C-alpha cells in the first residue's frame, strides 16, 4: 500500500488532543526566573537615561541593559541594523522597542520590577505613513528612507500602453495583519559549563532554530557548538515566529547569563501583539492596458511596503511582492518597481504569503475591473490571458512544467455545477455578490536562494531498527513531522510507524534551511526521501556484507559499531538561472496555482458581510497527506478572509491600539463559512512524488475575491483592506481612503 497520497492521522495528534504535548510555557526548570521586558513608550527618541526606582527592592531582581552586552549589540538577520537593546545615547525607533530586561523568582515581582524602571528620552520627529516616508518628512534611513528597491522590466511599457484600447490605473491599499498564533512567543534560556567555555541553551516556540542559532552566535561571538537551540512544540507561527524568536532569545539568554539561572520569557498577549512583527501594510499603484477583446498588453506596478523601524526581513518580503505583481497572466510589456520604506512602526515581517497577498490583491482587483470593462465573464477573461506551458513570465522565466492554470479554473467551475449551500442571511436589506481571484505562488526560496541555502536532512538507523528523520524543519502545526514520516517510509519501503521524526535541535539535526517559503515539503521533503532511500541501501549493504537479515534492522544497528546514517544536501533542479542584479531569470523553481470563489451577502443597513460560500482550488503538485493539505488550504483561506473583512491593526502614532484579543479580532467558527477546498494535483518533477509548496498560496487570493464580490454587491470600488463595516460605510458615502 502506498504511504503517500493517503491521510494517516498526525503523529503528534494524540498528544495534542489529550493535553500531553509540552509547549514552552509547560516546561518549568527548577529555580527558573521569570523575565519581563522594559519597552519604549515613544516612537522616535534619543534614550538619555534608564532610571531604576531607588525605593524598589532590587535584591532579588536581575536587570539587564545594553551595557551588559559583551559582543555586538545586534540581532543578526540580513542587514544588521536592529539592536538587541537600545543603548543609552542611542535612538529608540519605535514604540515597544526593548530597552531593558528584568528577571525575578516570581512573575509578580518581575512585573513590579519592570514598572519600577523609567526611561528618560528626548523626542525626535517620527514618520507613520508610506507617504510621509517617501516625502522624507523625517529622515530615518539613508538619504531617502528606502531600505530596498527592486525593479523588474519586460518589453517596453510605453509601447504596450500605446497599443492598448483601455488603460485603467488605480491605487490599492492593504493594512497590517497580526499573525495571532494562539500560543504567544516564549523561550527558556540557560547557560552551562565552566567559565570561559559556557554553552548557551535555548528552547522555545520558534520556526527556524538555525536563525536563532545564528543570532546568538553573533551576539555572544560563540562557535557553532556552544549554542544549542531546540524547538519546543510550537503553538502556531504563520511567519510570526520566523524572525522575532531571535530577539526574545537574545533577551532571555542575556538575563540567564547575568542571573546565572535559567530564565523563562513568555510574552503576555498584549505585549506580543504590540511588539512583534506583522504583515506589511502596502500601497500599490497599478496601471493595466488591454485591447477591446480583453487581451492584456501592458502592466506598470509601483508597490511600496511599510517596513517599519528596521530592515529585518522586509527586503525579501518586497522581493516576493514584486515577483508576484504580474500574476499568472501573459503580459508582453511589464514594469514593476518595489520599495520597502522606513517608518517608526514596529518592524513588519514575515506572515504567510510574504508580500504576495498585497500585490495579488492589487492585480486581481484590476483584472476584475478590466473584465467588467470589456464585458467578459470573470473566468473567460482570465482564461484568455492566463499562462500556459511554455509561456515566459515578467522576469523572463520560461514555464517548463507544472502549469495548472486551466486545472484550477476548471475545478472551481466544476464545483459550481453542484448545488451550493443555502443562504446564511435573508432580508430586504441584503445584497449579494460573487467574486473570484486567480493567482500563483512561487514555491521555495527566490532565485538562487535554495542554491545558497544547501538545505540538508539526515536519516539515521536507531538501535530499535526504526529510521529517524533529522532536519531543522519545524512542525509548527502544518504537519511537517507526519508528512516527512510518510515520504521517508515510502522511500525506505517500510511502514510509517517505523519512522520517527526528531524534534529539531541544532546539536542533533543539520541545517535544512528555515521553515518558511512553502519549502518544507517540496525542498526538505525531497532530500528526506533521498536520504531515506540511501539509508535503506546502506542498511541492506551492511546486512549483506555481515551476513545479517536486512529485514531485522535492530540486529543491523546492534552489529554496526557506529550509527548508520546518511545526509543529503538539496540540489536545485538543473537549468535554473537567476540574476540578482537585473532581477531576471527563474524566480522560482516552480509555481503553485489557485483560484478562489467567494459568494457573500452584505446587509446594507449594518454593512456587515457574511461569506456564504468559499470554494478554493489549489494546485499542490501532489498531496502527500491530503487531509493535512486540506487543513493548510482551509486555515490559510480563513486567515485571508479575516485579513479582508475583520482583522485590523490600529496604529496611533506608532502604537498598536488594539493589543488584546478582545479588540484585535480574528474569525471564530461562526464567521467562518463552510470551506470547500479542492485539491488539484499537477506534479512537479523535482518535488517528492510531484509535491509543490502549499503553506502560503491559500493566503494570497481570497481577499481579492472578497473585494471583487463586494464591489459587485455594493457597486463601489473596494480597493483597500480590511473592508470593515466602517470602511464600507465610508466607501458607499463616496469617501476615498
Amino acid at each position, binding site marked *: 500500500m502506498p504511504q503517500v497520497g493517503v491521510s494517516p492521522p498526525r503523529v503528534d495528534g494524540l498528544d495534542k*488532543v489529550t493535553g500531553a*504535548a509540552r*509547549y514552552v510555557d509547560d516546561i518549568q526548570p527548577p529555580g527558573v526566573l521569570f523575565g519581563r521586558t522594559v519597552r519604549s513608550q515613544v516612537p522616535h527618541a534619543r534614550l538619555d537615561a534608564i532610571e531604576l526606582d531607588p525605593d524598589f527592592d532590587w535584591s532579588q531582581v536581575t536587570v539587564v541593559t545594553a551595557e551588559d552586552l559583551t559582543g555586538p549589540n545586534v540581532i543578526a538577520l540580513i542587514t544588521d541594523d536592529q539592536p538587541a537593546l537600545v543603548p543609552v545615547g542611542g535612538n529608540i525607533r519605535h514604540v515597544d522597542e526593548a530597552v531593558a530586561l528584568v528577571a525575578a523568582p516570581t512573575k509578580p515581582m518581575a512585573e513590579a520590577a519592570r514598572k519600577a524602571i523609567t526611561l528618560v528620552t528626548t523626542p525626535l520627529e517620527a514618520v507613520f505613513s508610506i507617504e510621509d516616508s517617501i516625502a522624507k518628512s523625517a529622515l530615518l534611513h539613508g538619504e531617502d528612507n528606502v531600505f530596498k528597491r527592486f525593479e523588474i522590466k519586460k518589453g517596453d511599457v510605453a509601447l504596450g500602453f500605446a497599443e492598448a484600447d483601455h488603460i485603467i490605473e488605480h491605487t490599492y491599499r492593504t493594512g497590517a495583519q497580526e499573525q495571532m*498564533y494562539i500560543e504567544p512567543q516564549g523561550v527558556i534560556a540557560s547557560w552551562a559549563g565552566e567559565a570561559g567555555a559556557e554553552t548557551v541553551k535555548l528552547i522555545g516556540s520558534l520556526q527556524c532554530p538555525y536563525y536563532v542559532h545564528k543570532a546568538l552566535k553573533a551576539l555572544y561571538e560563540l562557535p557553532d557548538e556552544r549554542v544549542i537551540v531546540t524547538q519546543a512544540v510550537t*503553538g502556531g507561527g504563520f511567519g510570526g515566529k520566523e524572525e522575532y524568536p531571535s530577539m526574545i532569545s537574545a533577551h532571555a539568554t542575556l538575563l540567564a547569563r547575568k542571573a546565572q539561572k535559567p530564565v523563562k520569557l513568555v510574552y503576555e498577549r498584549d505585549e506580543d501583539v504590540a511588539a512583534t512583527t506583522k504583515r506589511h501594510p502596502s500601497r500599490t499603484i497599478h496601471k493595466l492596458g488591454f485591447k477591446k477583446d480583453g487581451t492584456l498588453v501592458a502592466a506598470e506596478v509601483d508597490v511600496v511596503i511599510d517596513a517599519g523601524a528596521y530592515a529585518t526581513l522586509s527586503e525579501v518580503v518586497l522581493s516576493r511582492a514584486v515577483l508576484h505583481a504580474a500574476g499568472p497572466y501573459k503580459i508582453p510589456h511589464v514594469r514593476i518597481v518595489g520599495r520597502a520604506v522606513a517608518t517608526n512602526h514596529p518592524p513588519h515581517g514575515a506572515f504567510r504569503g510574504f508580500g504576495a497577498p498585497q500585490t495579488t490583491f492589487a492585480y486581481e482587483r484590476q483584472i476584475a475591473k478590466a473584465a467588467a470593462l470589456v464585458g467578459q465573464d470573470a473566468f473567460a477573461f482570465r482564461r484568455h490571458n492566463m499562462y500556459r506551458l511554455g509561456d515566459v513570465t515578467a522576469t523572463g522565466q520560461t514555464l517548463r512544467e507544472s502549469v495548472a492554470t486551466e486545472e484550477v479554473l476548471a475545478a472551481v467551475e466544476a464545483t459550481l455545477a453542484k448545488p451550493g449551500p443555502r443562504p446564511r442571511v435573508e432580508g430586504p436589506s441584503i445584497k449579494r455578490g460573487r467574486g473570484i481571484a486567480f493567482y500563483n505562488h512561487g514555491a521555495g526560496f527566490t532565485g538562487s536562494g535554495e542554491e545558497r541555502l544547501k538545505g540538508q536532512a539526515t536519516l539515521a538507523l536507531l538501535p530499535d531498527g526504526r529510521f529517524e528523520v533529522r532536519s531543522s524543519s519545524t512542525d509548527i502545526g502544518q504537519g511537517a513531522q507526519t508528512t516527512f514520516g510518510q515520504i521517508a517510509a515510502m522511500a525506505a519501503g517500510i511502514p510509517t510507524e517505523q519512522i520517527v521524526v526528531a524534534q529539531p535541535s541544532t546539536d542533533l539535526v543539520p541545517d535544512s534551511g528555515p521553515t518558511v517559503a512553502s519549502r518544507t515539503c517540496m525542498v526538505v521533503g525531497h532530500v528526506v526521501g533521498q536520504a531515506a532511500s540511501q539509508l535503506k541501501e546502506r542498511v541492506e549493504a551492511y546486512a549483506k556484507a555481515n551476513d545479517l537479515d536486512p529485514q531485522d534492522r535492530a540486529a543491523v544497528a546492534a552489529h554496526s559499531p557506529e550509527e548508520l546514517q546518511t545526509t543529503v544536501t538539496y540540489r536545485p533542479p538543473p537549468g535554473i538561472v537567476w540574476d540578482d542584479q537585473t532581477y531576471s531569470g527563474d524566480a522560482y523553481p516552480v509555481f503553485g496555482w489557485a483560484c478562489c470563489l467567494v459568494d457573500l451577502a452584505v446587509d446594507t443597513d449594518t454593512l456587515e458581510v457574511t461569506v456564504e460560500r468559499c470554494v478554493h482550488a489549489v494546485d499542490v503538485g501532489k498531496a502527500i497527506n491530503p487531509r493535512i493539505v486540506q*487543513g493548510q488550504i482551509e486555515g490559510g483561506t480563513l486567515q485571508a478572509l479575516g485579513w479582508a473583512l475583520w482583522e485590523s491593526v490600529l496604529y496611533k502614532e506608532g502604537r498598536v491600539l488594539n493589543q*488584546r484579543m478582545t479588540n484585535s479580532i480574528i474569525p471564530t467558527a461562526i464567521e467562518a463559512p463552510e470551506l470547500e477546498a479542492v485539491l488539484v494535483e499537477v506534479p512537479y518533477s523535482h518535488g517528492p512524488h510531484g509535491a509543490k509548496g502549499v503553506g502560503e498560496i491559500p493566503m494570497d487570493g481570497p481577499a481579492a475575491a472578497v473585494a471583487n464580490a463586494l464591489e459587485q454587491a455594493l457597486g463601489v470600488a473596494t480597493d483597500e483592506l480590511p473592508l470593515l463595516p466602517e470602511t464600507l460605510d465610508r466607501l458607499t458615502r463616496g469617501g476615498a481612503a
Partner: protein
Amino acid sequence: MKLELKVNGETRSVEASPIARLLDVLREEISLTGTKEGCGEGECGACTILIDGKPVNSCLVPAAQAQGAELTTIEGLADRCGYGRQGATPLQTAIVEWGGTQCGICTPGIAVCAQALLAEEPAPSRERIREALAGNLCRCTGYQLIVDAVAAAAEASAGSQA
C-alpha cells in the same frame, strides 16, 4: 490561603493567593499543563475546563471560587467520560483522525468544550457546533475539520446507540 479543589476526581490541597486565577493554580500548583493560556481575558478559550460539567474559561475564575465544584481538565476528560485515565474519548480520536488539530494549542479547550456540547446535545447541527465553539479560537484550521470531527463523533455515537 489554603484551597481544596476537586480536580479530575481527586481532592487537591494547594496554597494559593485568594485572587489566584484557577488557570494558574491548575498549571503551576497541580502541574496540569494541558490547559493553555492564549489571552488571559476569556477571549480565546484555550484555557477551557469543565466546572460541574459546564465549559468555563479558567483564566477568568478566581481559584477560591472553584472550591466545592467538580473540575475536569483535558487530562481528566477521557476518565470522566468512561474511557480511562490514559485513554481518549471517541471525540478526541475523531479530532485527530479528521485533522481537527494542527498546532494543537487550542485543541484541549476545543476538545473539552465540544465534549460538553455532546453531553448536552448528542446530535447537534453543524450550526450548533459552530455556535458552541464560538468561544474557542483556532488560527490554524479554519474550523472546517474541527466541525467535521465533532459532527462525525456525534454521528458515530448515535449509530452505536441505535
